[in-house]
């Protein structure tokens, strides 16, 4: 009776929590809409005022266009002899587009909003997820499940409500890239994949925009300014795309949160230098950052290539064929971060995670081989599985044979193979078939499907 009451009580609390969360979300949405509206009205007023004051005394009363509020807000930058009023007013007149509001874009956007870039645009189609927060520091827990651009725009507005912030809640594609990028002076590439990098570079070459390109993975980062002042573009440096296997993603290889943070900050710095016409941007050079050994190396790279298909003497790239160009095919990797889904095996060599659950429940004699790398296995694993990373599979065959003998004397014992998503397990089963383990089957969808279909409390990563 009492336990039943407890269940009812918790259900009631959950319902109430849910409805409060829903109304909170509604209110937040209304707040951000109103903020955007207010922003629009204020900027119109500002423009009108500016226009009228321009007529009355030809600029501002101080002769440099900065209002008293601006002078106070940006005073620490104005005090810099090498930056000063001129740098700040150049910055306020400039517009910067940040493509990607993730690990690189987060700090870049925060600094660009804070330092007073006149117009700040952001492009992203993704939503905030819990496993983003360790590095995408512009987003908070309250925005999980909501658009990254919405979240980033709200954060930027809360830091600096006096600049214009423009949200592009869409993926950058060849169809919309020219229209979006043409509205800005400088572009920051904070994306996470090869096709986007080629597409953004080509688009910047076509429109003559300087490109601040950053990348980070694991414990390393890279930074360069392309298409600036006669310097090289991304294609001059990398005319041929790398093989797909060389393009690792943060979701597979991991990344320490602060590493893209460092590179994102440096991207903001380079963009500020280009926008304010101060200093010497990192053009014709590349910065290589190795976090683990605390080494930063700045190297000289080649200049603009006369053979370059985008910016060379006889470029094949035009606005028309840019819009037709298939960057996914060119780089053989997808623009969107959808994970690979291989299909190497026939249905009879595979079982679903639910079917495997039945095998376990019935107590059928079997061996479960987890072919993920050992550092993955240490995060989480299924009970009674043995870890044989795919790379060592061939060397560890005797271990598999002896494990088979120890269950049911090896008679009719099944061999099941599992991995994270169900790709490597298929490769492993192919190899096992070749090596004589004809009964080997893989679990479709790997541990992710186990967590999704069988055990909701099983951690995913």
């Amino acid at each position, binding site marked *: 009776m009492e336990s039943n009451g407890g269940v009812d009580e918790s259900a009631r609390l959950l319902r109430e929590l849910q409805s409060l969360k829903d109304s909170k979300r509604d209110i937040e949405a209304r707040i951000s809409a109103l903020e955007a509206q207010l922003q629009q009205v204020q900027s119109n007023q500002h423009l009108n005022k500016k226009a009228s004051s321009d007529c009355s005394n030809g600029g501002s009363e101080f002769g440099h266009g900065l209002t008293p509020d601006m002078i106070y807000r940006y005073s620490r930058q104005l005090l810099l002899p090498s930056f000063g009023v001129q740098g700040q007013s150049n910055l306020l007149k400039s517009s910067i587009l940040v493509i*990607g509001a*993730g*690990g*690189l*874009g987060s700090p870049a956007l925060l600094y660009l909003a804070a330092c007073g870039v006149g117009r700040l645009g952001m492009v992203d189609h993704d939503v905030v997820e819990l496993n983003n927060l360790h590095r995408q520091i512009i987003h908070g827990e309250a925005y999980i499940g909501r658009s990254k651009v919405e979240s980033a725009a709200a954060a930027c507005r809360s830091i600096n409500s006096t600049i214009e912030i423009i949200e592009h809640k869409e993926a950058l594609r060849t169809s919309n890239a020219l229209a979006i990028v043409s509205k800005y002076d400088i572009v920051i590439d*904070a*994306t*996470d*994949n*090869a096709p986007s*990098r080629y597409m953004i570079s080509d688009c910047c070459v076509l429109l003559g925009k300087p490109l601040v390109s*950053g*990348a*980070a*993975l*694991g414990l*390393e*980062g*890279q930074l360069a300014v392309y298409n600036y002042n006669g310097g090289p573009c991304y294609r001059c*440096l*990398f*005319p*041929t*795309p*790398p*093989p797909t*296997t*060389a*393009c*690792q*993603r*943060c979701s597979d*290889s991991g*990344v320490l949160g602060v590493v*893209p943070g460092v*590179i994102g900050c440096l991207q903001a710095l380079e963009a500020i230098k280009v926008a304010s016409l101060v200093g010497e941007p990192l053009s014709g050079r*590349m910065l*290589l950052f*190795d976090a683990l*050994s605390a080494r930063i*190396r*700045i*190297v*000289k*790279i*080649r200049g603009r290539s006369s053979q370059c298909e985008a910016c060379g003497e006889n470029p094949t790239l035009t606005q028309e064929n840019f819009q037709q160009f298939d960057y996914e095919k060119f780089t053989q990797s997808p623009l969107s971060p959808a994970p690979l889904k291989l299909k190497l095996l026939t249905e009879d060599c595979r079982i679903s995670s639910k079917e495997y659950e039945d095998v376990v429940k019935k107590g059928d004699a079997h061996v479960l081989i987890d072919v993920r790398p050992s550092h993955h296995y240490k995060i989480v694993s299924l009970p009674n599985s043995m870890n044989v990373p795919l790379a060592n599979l061939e060397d560890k065959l005797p271990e598999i044979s002896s494990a088979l003998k120890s269950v049911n004397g090896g008679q009719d014992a099944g061999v099941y193979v599992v991995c994270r998503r169900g790709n490597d397990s298929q490769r492993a089963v192919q190899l096992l078939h070749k090596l004589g383990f004809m009964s080997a089957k893989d679990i479709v969808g790997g541990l992710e499907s186990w967590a999704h279909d069988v055990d909701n409390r099983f951690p995913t990563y």
Partner: protein
Amino acid sequence: MKRTRRQYYTAAVERLFYWGIKRHFYAFLLSDLSAIAAKAAKQKENRTKFQLHERVFVKITKMQLTLEFGGGLELLCDSVKIHSVDVDLPAEEKKLTMKHLLAWVRSNLIKERPEMFMKGDTVRPGVLVLVNDCDWELSGQLDTTLENKDVVVFISTLHGG
């Protein structure tokens, strides 16, 4: 106390005797030191000669280089990023070029998936090669001549963010 004449003489003789010994001792010491110094000087000379000889010898057949791998390429050589290596000059050659070095790296340092490092006789697309912090495109790519103590960096371009 008054000394006898005999005691006086004895003391004088003793003193003279000691002076003699001291003089001889110092003389012996001095002569020995100079001998040691001369010997040391000769050894040093020999060593220098030998070293010179050795240096000339090294220049002809071996090249001391620092090779660095980054951006994930280190995974192909046991996850070691920095390698200090002595590379033998190819037979009948007086200089070491990047072309030779790539072949040497492929057979001596790359432990797995060589196709992730090379394509044909050059590096695969997406790998930057830097000789003394300078893009090899500026020094003649495969024809770049390497000097003793050069630093060569191989770095795979990153796409994550």
